[in-house]
Each structure stands twice: as C-alpha cells, then as structure tokens.
C-alpha cells in the first residue's frame, strides 16, 4: 500500500521519457528491426550505460542492494525473448 505513490511517480517519468523518445510510435519500434531508425537501441543502451554506472557506484558506496530480476534460465530467457520479438515486430510496441 505504502509504495503505490512512488510507483506512480516512477511510472509517470518512465512514460514521459518513452513518449519523448518516440517509443510510443509503431514506426519507431518496427524500424529498429529494419535497421532504419535505431532510436530504440540508442534509448535502451543509454539507459543501460547510465543505469549500470549509477547502480554499481551506489552499490560500492553501500547505499543500494542489487535486487536481481530474473535468475538465469537460458532456455526460458531465450525462448521468451524469441516469442517476445515476434510480437514486438508484429504489433510495434
């Protein structure tokens, strides 16, 4: 219950940034698979680079703990990704 407001705030800025990067558009998503517009990758990789540096910096200072997302489960992660990619290229989201 307590964390509903922070979740809304995080989501708000997340949605804001997705919209500003154009990731709400069908063409933006599909064109990354056609190598015509690499916006999705530019966005994701910038987020990853900044996030990695920031998270590991704070971790080394002892301020955050890694929460871990998914355990490595090669078949599941890979097959899930393969199915996800078909849907992503088809729907464009």
């Amino acid at each position, binding site marked *: 219950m307590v964390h509903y407001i922070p979740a809304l705030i995080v989501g708000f800025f997340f949605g804001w*940034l997705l919209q500003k990067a154009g990731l709400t558009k069908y063409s933006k998503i599909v064109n990354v698979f056609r190598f015509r517009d690499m916006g999705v990758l530019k966005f994701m990789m910038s987020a990853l680079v900044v996030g990695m540096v920031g998270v590991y910096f704070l971790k080394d200072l002892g301020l955050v703990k890694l929460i871990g997302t998914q355990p490595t489960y090669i078949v599941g992660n890979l097959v899930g990704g393969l199915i996800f990619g078909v849907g992503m290229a088809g729907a464009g989201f």
Partner: protein
Amino acid sequence: MRFLKWLRASEWSPYVAGALLGLLAVLALLFTDHLLSGSGGFENIGGSIVKAVSPAAADNVYWKFVQRPGISWSVMVLLGVMAGALVSSLLGRTFKWRLVSDDQWKQNFGPAIWKRWLALFLGAILLEYGAGIAGGCTSGLAISGGLQLTPSAFLFMGGMFASGIPTAMILYRKRY
C-alpha cells in the same frame, strides 16, 4: 526560457531520454528498492480477473507464486506510464486520437483498421506470453536486469532481436 521550450519539444534525442531513464532507474532503486517494470502488471490484473470469475482456474503455480493477482508495483507503474505519456504528448502537442496509429503501417498494409487491430491483438498476446516465459519485458528484464548485469537480460535481448528482425523481414518482404 530555454528549459520550458525543451520541456515542450515534441521529441528529445533518444540519447538524452535514455540517459534520463537510466538516472530514473538508479533513483528508483535508491529510494524505493524497485526497478522499472511493466508487463507483469497485466498479468497481475489478468490474475485478479480470472480469480474473480473462476477461482479454480486461478489456482496454479504461476498466479500463486510468480505473478500474484492484485494491485502490484507494476500495475501502479503502468498507470503512471499512461499518465506520463499523456502529459508528455499534451505538452509536446503531439496528442491525437487515432484508430490506425501510424502512417508507415498504412503505406505498407493499407488503411484497413481491423488489420492493424488484429496485428496489435495477436502481437500483444505474443509479447505478454514471451515476457511471461522469460520473466520480464524490455523494461522489467532487459533494462532493469541489464543494468544489474544479469545474464538473463542479455539472453532476452539477443532472443528479441534474433526473432524480431526476421519477423519484420517477413512482414515487409520487398519493402524491408
């Protein structure tokens, strides 16, 4: 003011928006012990609906342990995403009601609305199913996992492009 003008721009550089997203993820982890997630929220909502309609059908391992029904962190993030994207598009003056959402779609697959909606519906089922198997979507697994350097995130991203590229090739054929 330049800042206000920037705030009202219709689109930002993907590098800037991406870097800000990375910052947002770091702040989220610091202050809330959560990271970005999205697709799980649909499963929590789906679970709640199934539980209300037929409790026996909801009585399985997935909904009991993996994605519990109810209003979760992801559901609230999803609501926030919608609100944020709405405000952003209103400020950028790109907000518009549309049935077929994209010019590129119309050029390649014609103006028929049902085709677009069918592709959206089927594509979304595959998206959600794939995300369910892998344990997350582009935000919940690829970004949140990737910035903690979990191998699952990179396997997922590899899979996503390995199938997305041929799917786009098949759909666009000569126009690829």
